[in-house]
């Protein structure tokens, strides 16, 4: 009873979700979370449809959009897609291939990641699945932030382009829900010297300017990876960007593909279910 009252108080105020982590146990309800998440952005950006969020900040910043579209005419990730395809098709030393590890030979499956893995009892991102495949075939793991992993992802993402983000939280495995909840908690937890939560910038202040930047909405944050970031001058993965965000709010570093980041990605992707993926992409 108390929790229901509290929930209605929380959801009635605009900043209701923001930065308030209560000690009250709450039953995670991802679909309700998703609905509220979207309603918030719907109010902020009434003209946007769900698919628009695939373009991220370019859906709400028309000047930046122009620049982005000019670059998309012949995007700098073009080569990464080709290289990724070659890497993906090259057999391991034992003669087996990546295609053997994935459903549908790895083609058009990227939009279904991250997935809950019952056997391992953890969230598996596409990057982790690639390295698990390598481990199963006695190959050394690839570093998670750039270079070959980003090229492989560029190819796999490209084969999924246009397909809707399709994340499942199996109802019959409470550990999956717990992982989702951990990701959600991480998202709303304030951290670092600047004491920001992800939500501080990307929910509360989405569309507002932080110095010269327009802050992107978190809805669709996972739709367009990997990314050729102009700042990096090369391809990078989502977790590379997560790490950078932590640096920028002066929070202690967390490694790429750590459980925290994988659960965060699980939460964020689920919020974006239905948004057409358009990786790989270019960002500033």
């Amino acid at each position, binding site marked *: 009873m108390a929790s229901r009252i509290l929930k209605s108080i929380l959801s009635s105020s605009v900043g209701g979700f923001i930065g308030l982590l209560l000690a009250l146990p709450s039953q995670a309800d991802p679909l309700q979370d998703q609905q509220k998440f979207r309603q918030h952005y719907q109010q902020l950006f009434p003209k946007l449809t769900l698919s628009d969020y695939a373009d991220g900040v370019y859906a709400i910043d028309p*000047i930046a959009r122009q*620049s982005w579209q000019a670059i998309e005419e012949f995007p700098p990730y073009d080569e990464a897609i080709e290289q990724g395809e070659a890497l993906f098709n090259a057999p391991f030393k034992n003669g087996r291939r990546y295609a053997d590890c994935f459903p549908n030979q790895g083609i058009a499956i990227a939009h279904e990641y991250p997935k809950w893995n019952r056997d391992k009892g953890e969230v598996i991102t596409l990057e982790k699945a690639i390295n698990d495949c390598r481990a199963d075939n006695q190959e050394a793991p690839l570093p998670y932030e750039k270079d070959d992993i980003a090229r492989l992802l560029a190819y796999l993402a490209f084969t999924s382009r246009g397909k809707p983000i399709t994340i499942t939280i199996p109802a019959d495995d409470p550990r999956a829900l717990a992982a989702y909840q951990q990701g959600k908690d991480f998202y709303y937890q304030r951290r670092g010297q600047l004491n920001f939560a992800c939500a501080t910038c990307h929910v509360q202040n989405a569309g507002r300017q932080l*110095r010269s*930047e327009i802050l992107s909405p978190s809805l669709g944050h996972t739709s367009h990876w990997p990314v050729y970031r*102009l*700042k990096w001058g090369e391809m990078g993965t989502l977790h590379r960007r997560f790490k950078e965000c932590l640096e920028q709010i002066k929070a202690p570093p967390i490694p790429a593909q750590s459980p925290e980041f994988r659960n965060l990605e699980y939460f964020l992707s689920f919020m974006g279910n239905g948004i057409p993926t358009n990786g790989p992409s270019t960002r500033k």
Partner: protein
Amino acid sequence: MPVNRREFLKKSVSLGAYSMALASGLVKSGPASAEWIAEQFAQGKLEETLKTLFKDAKITESDKIEIQIPQIAENGAVVPITVTSHLDGVDTISILVEKNPVPLAARFDLSPELEPFVSARLKMAETSDVIVIAQAGDKLYSARETVKVTIGGCGG
């Protein structure tokens, strides 16, 4: 490595590149060709570069040179520009960034088989005017656009 030896090597490498290019038919010899001339790509002020390129020739502002470039550069490392000239007989298009240490970004020598049109992506060190000079025979025309280059916030 002493500076003058490095400079010497740099010059001979670029000469080597030039003669290789000449031999392979890459570069037209002669005044109209856009061969790589170190003085044109020297560090300095815009005025000095313009003098090196065009001596004291008169440059007339023209509204017939169309520059498509974002008003605000998302990232100064990659600023897309498209130049279309509606003047007759344009055979060379030069693109300069006023506040860059080296103002000349590129010179395009275009044969009549090509439209006076070129796209490129520029580096911009800071908020600056981007100047396009179109050459039609002996006549020089210019246009400019201001591009704001911002220091990013959390994404920067």
